[in-house]
């Protein structure tokens, strides 16, 4: 196998390297890629969409259709993980572990109880016991709102600075995952219910595609935000800028929810009760 791998790698690598002879040098401002399509983006973006961040404008408007499917890819991955892993039946395994809140004593029940003990007295903890670390838990609890605020900022400010729906969405998703890491998966799940996560994931993509479909309904082409100017009551260029904002919100929502969905299913092998 190793010899075969080496042969394939040498062959493919050789082919790829030999082709680089005809490529432009690194950073060459006169390369075809820098001269053909992209100058239009750089020079006309402001005029056509009034978005200073060219990457955002190209991403969500000129090539907005790609981006819609990119969001769909994320959504697909979330649904795929759910479909492959999620299991309704409880995890097999004999014991459950609880911590007595008042004393900190750990109790292991050899049989899963018929009724859960009162949560304010006994707190369920993961099988692979993690220490009750006050500092980590509280620092994270304090940090998470700020992380989320920052995530919202990144989504909203994508027009003017590096950022946008994907980046902001990932930050928001990470905040929920941080909660699951520092506390436990059950806490994170009660804060953000499974159904709500699933719905948000679909809704996010739906906002994107819906904005596009709305443009279509208004008589423009699909995703032609300029067609939305009558409803938004702004001129077509500003409508493009606003349209970009709407779809970025949708992207953010979808990405956040899907990250959480994937994490939960992977971490708990689909049982959603405990995990990393």
């Amino acid at each position, binding site marked *: 196998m190793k010899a075969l791998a080496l042969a394939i790698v040498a062959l493919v690598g050789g*082919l*790829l390297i*030999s*082709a*680089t*002879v*005809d*490529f*432009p040098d690194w950073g060459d401002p006169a*390369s*075809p*890629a*820098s*001269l*053909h*399509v*992209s100058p*239009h*983006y750089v020079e006309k973006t402001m005029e056509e969409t009034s978005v200073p961040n060219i990457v955002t404008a190209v991403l969500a*408007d*000129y*090539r*907005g*259709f*790609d981006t819609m*499917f*990119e969001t*769909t*890819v994320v*959504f*697909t*991955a979330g*649904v*795929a993980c*759910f*479909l*492959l892993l*999620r299991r*309704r039946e409880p995890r097999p395994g004999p014991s459950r572990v609880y911590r007595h809140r008042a004393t900190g004593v750990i109790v292991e029940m050899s049989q899963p109880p018929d009724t859960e003990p009162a949560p304010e007295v006994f707190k369920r903890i993961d099988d692979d016991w993690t220490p009750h670390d006050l500092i980590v838990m509280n620092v994270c609890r304090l940090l998470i709102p700020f992380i989320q605020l920052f995530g919202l900022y990144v989504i909203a400010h994508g027009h003017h600075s590096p950022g946008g729906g994907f980046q902001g969405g990932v930050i928001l998703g990470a905040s929920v995952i941080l909660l699951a890491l520092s506390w436990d998966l059950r806490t994170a799940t009660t804060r953000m219910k499974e*159904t709500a996560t*699933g*719905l948000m*994931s*679909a*809704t996010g*993509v*739906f906002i994107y*595609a*819906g904005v*596009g*479909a709305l443009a*279509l309904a208004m008589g*423009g*082409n*699909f*995703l*032609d*935000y*300029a*067609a939305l100017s009558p409803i938004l009551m702004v001129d077509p260029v500003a409508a493009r800028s606003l349209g970009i904002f709407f779809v970025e919100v949708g992207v953010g929502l979808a990405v956040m929810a899907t990250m959480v969905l994937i994490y939960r299913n992977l971490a708990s092998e689909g049982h959603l009760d405990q995990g990393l």
Partner: protein
Amino acid sequence: MSEQYPALVVIGPLLCALLVSVAGWLRPRLCLPLAIVGLGIAAAASTGLLAQVLATGPVSYRLGGWAPPWGIVYYVDNLSAVVAALVSWVALFNLAASYRTAMTDYPEKIGPFYTLYVLAVTGMLGMVVTGDAFNLYVLLEITSLTGYALIGLAGGRAPLASLNYLFLGTIGASFYLLGVGYLYIVTGSLNMADLAKLLTPLYGSLALLAAFAITLVGLWMKMAFFPLHAWLPNAYGFAPAPAASLLAPLMTKVMVYVMIRVMISVFTVEFILQEVALSQFVVWLAVAAMVAGALMALGQRDLKRMLAYIVVAEVGYMVGGAWLGNKMAMTGAILHIINDAVMTFCVFLAAGCIYQKTRGTAFEDLQGLFKKMPWTMTALAAGALAMIGVPPFCGFFSKWYLIRGGLEAGHWGFVGALLFSSLVNVVLFFRIFEIAFFEPMSHGHGGHGGHGEQAKAIALTEAPLSMLLPLLAAALGLVALGLATGPLVEKIILPIIPAGLG
């Protein structure tokens, strides 16, 4: 409305997939109707699109209102319109046929299952109508991801098969992406029509050759072209029946479509015939694919796996036809995309019906089926005859054109391999029919099994009507397609064959 058909073909199913997902969380009973609505919109729009394209010529659609090459355009000509119509109708029929299996096998996951199902179709349709090389990559990944999940859903060996598919599929898609990157670096464009224009002065450059080679190898991986086929038999053999009968007929065919699209619309046939000059080599690979696929199919003892190997051989037909370098063979290859999709659908759906009743498709499970499931077996026989190439079933006519192309090119190896694989198909299918016809559950009184075997024999009846009707429709479609070959070739295929082909 008609000017929005190209968008509707993709948007309809996409929006419905999202609604299916929402319904999956809130009202699972609505999933199936929504999925049907989504694919119905796609089928209606693609049919309308086909009519429109035939009436007025190629249609292009600017997404977001941006002109190419700055924005993404959909470019729909005869070829894409007919393949889109094919994909959407086959997917719709399969949805109708497989809902029972899905309901009984995955009752709790109906929502995600249908979401991914509709998304897979969305991706395929998008790949077919798009005129942008990078957009194609994104849609390819959607189809692939849904495919991995749908295949891995089954228990047993399916997840491992799916993971292998994922590895090879990812390498394939990445190669395609890299090829697009190479094209971008030498031209600066991503639009197919624009690329074709910009590439002409670059013929002969090493970078272009490398771009072509990488793109092609990537696509071959995704379509399971010999010798890059290793993932396919396991993936389709172990996949759940509804997924197998969706992906096996459509996925490889759409990838062949993409290859032909890239060959004629991006690189142009002049480049391929004169600059690449690999035709002989590729056609011999195709010959190897046909022969190897046929021989490996002979070694199988399971209906679905056998069919999967036949798919490998069929890919050889199409790639070989596309590369023979003349009009006849290209016509045959394109015609075979259509015909093969329907006949593969027919046989995989028949296998699905058998699985629904016997819970297995190993050869022992097929005993006595002519008695127990006469209609299913009739449809399977129709599919088999189409694959063997018996007129008036459609498989005969694409073989006709392929053989003529092979003769015109003087490529006797290709002609011989085609006939050989037809003959092996006779053996393959009649071996199954013999089991189903001559072995009427005979070993029930042979000692093992006893009453259980007897009970099974009695319980076995024809597949439910919801599966049977689409299956019979597909079987009839095989004849209808065969008889419609004349207009199909005359009106749809010939106009898009590039003049550069001899």
